[in-house]
């Protein structure tokens, strides 16, 4: 239930068996079926979610009902509306499951408690947020400066599993393209 989660932690920090046991008392295990929501726009985001198994996405919806995918999360990734969680304001994002998923939820309150009792976790969180910031910046730069083909190639090379597992229309939305544009770009690339 928490295997991938503690493996992820072990990449950055070393916890004793006692610390792992203590840690577990603060975690919320949650199963989500495909298409079920973890968070809907308008609710305050109370948890950050770690994906043990499955795949999730976060997205916004405009007035016309168009979806804009912000992030995907596969096994070993965290997902949540950080802005809502940190400010306590209603979320602007929706988060739902693309596949049947198993999650580890950590509430803001639990996170504070863990950091107090296991200070090493603060170091892990700092690295995590640092990486999230870099990824967000990189994504912003790619959207602003790369061509359609380049954006797709970057995604394919960096996260081949996402391209394999996620439906094409979602990939298009993530890259800021219509499904037709993405399909054309893929055809052109396969001819090269």
């Amino acid at each position: 239930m928490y295997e991938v989660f503690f493996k992820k932690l072990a990449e950055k920090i070393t916890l004793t068996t006692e610390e792992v046991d203590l840690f577990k008392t603060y975690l919320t295990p949650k199963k989500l079926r495909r298409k079920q929501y973890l968070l809907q726009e308008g609710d305050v985001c109370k948890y950050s979610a770690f994906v043990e198994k499955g795949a999730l996405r976060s997205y916004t919806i405009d007035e016309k009902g168009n979806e804009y995918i912000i992030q995907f999360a596969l096994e070993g990734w965290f997902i949540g509306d950080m802005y809502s969680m940190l400010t306590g304001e209603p979320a602007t994002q929706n988060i739902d499951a693309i596949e049947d998923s198993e999650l580890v939820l950590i509430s803001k309150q639990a996170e504070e408690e863990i950091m107090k009792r296991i200070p090493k976790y603060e170091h892990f969180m700092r690295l995590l947020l640092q990486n999230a910031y870099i990824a967000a910046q990189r994504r912003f730069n790619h959207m602003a400066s790369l061509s359609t083909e380049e954006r797709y190639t970057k995604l394919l090379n960096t996260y081949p599993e996402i391209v394999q597992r996620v439906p094409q229309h979602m990939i298009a939305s993530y890259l800021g393209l219509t499904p037709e544009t993405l399909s054309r770009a893929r055809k052109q690339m396969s001819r090269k």
Partner: protein
Amino acid sequence: MLFLALSQWSEAAHRRKFALSNSIEMRTKQTIAIIGLGDVGKGLATALAKGTDRVLLFDENAKEAENFTANLLKANPAYDVEFMICAANASWEADIIIPTVAQAELPKITAYIKEYVNQKIVISIGNTCNGYALQELLPNVKVVKTFTNEVSVNQPTKGKMVDCHIEGSETSIVENVVDLIKTIGFNPVVINPTKTEIIELV
């Protein structure tokens, strides 16, 4: 007939009540697991058809649970309800767990679901399930105690809504349960042991 009266909670009358001004309606659909389909469990499952939450039903008698769920769906095809053959799986999927088993069954069932309910909201209802015992058996959950001094959701109350008392240690958790209590047709009255002011819910 559901009978949720509780004499053991009479000490609660001394406690002060306070109102939640306006509980905020959640948009994200919550999943509620009802563990045990006796009279109380069945009554709850029937009443929750009026709401928008997803409801998972478990009973040791799987056949009975399946038939009961089929009847609920026949009466209300839009009801997002499902019977589960495993209490642990139902608890794993749920955000809120309501054990409605007899007191004697509580240690066995809580031992079985313990791992899957960690940090979740667990509601004790009336004297089918003692809130304090539940908290002892499940130390890492957020127990919210609910009880009413009167009768049931199935009994006519001459147009007057019956109060249901709600007691929990965290306001945000209690707010969640307030909506649930409204859905099943009771008037939620929140009891906060730390407050001294009484304000009745309007």
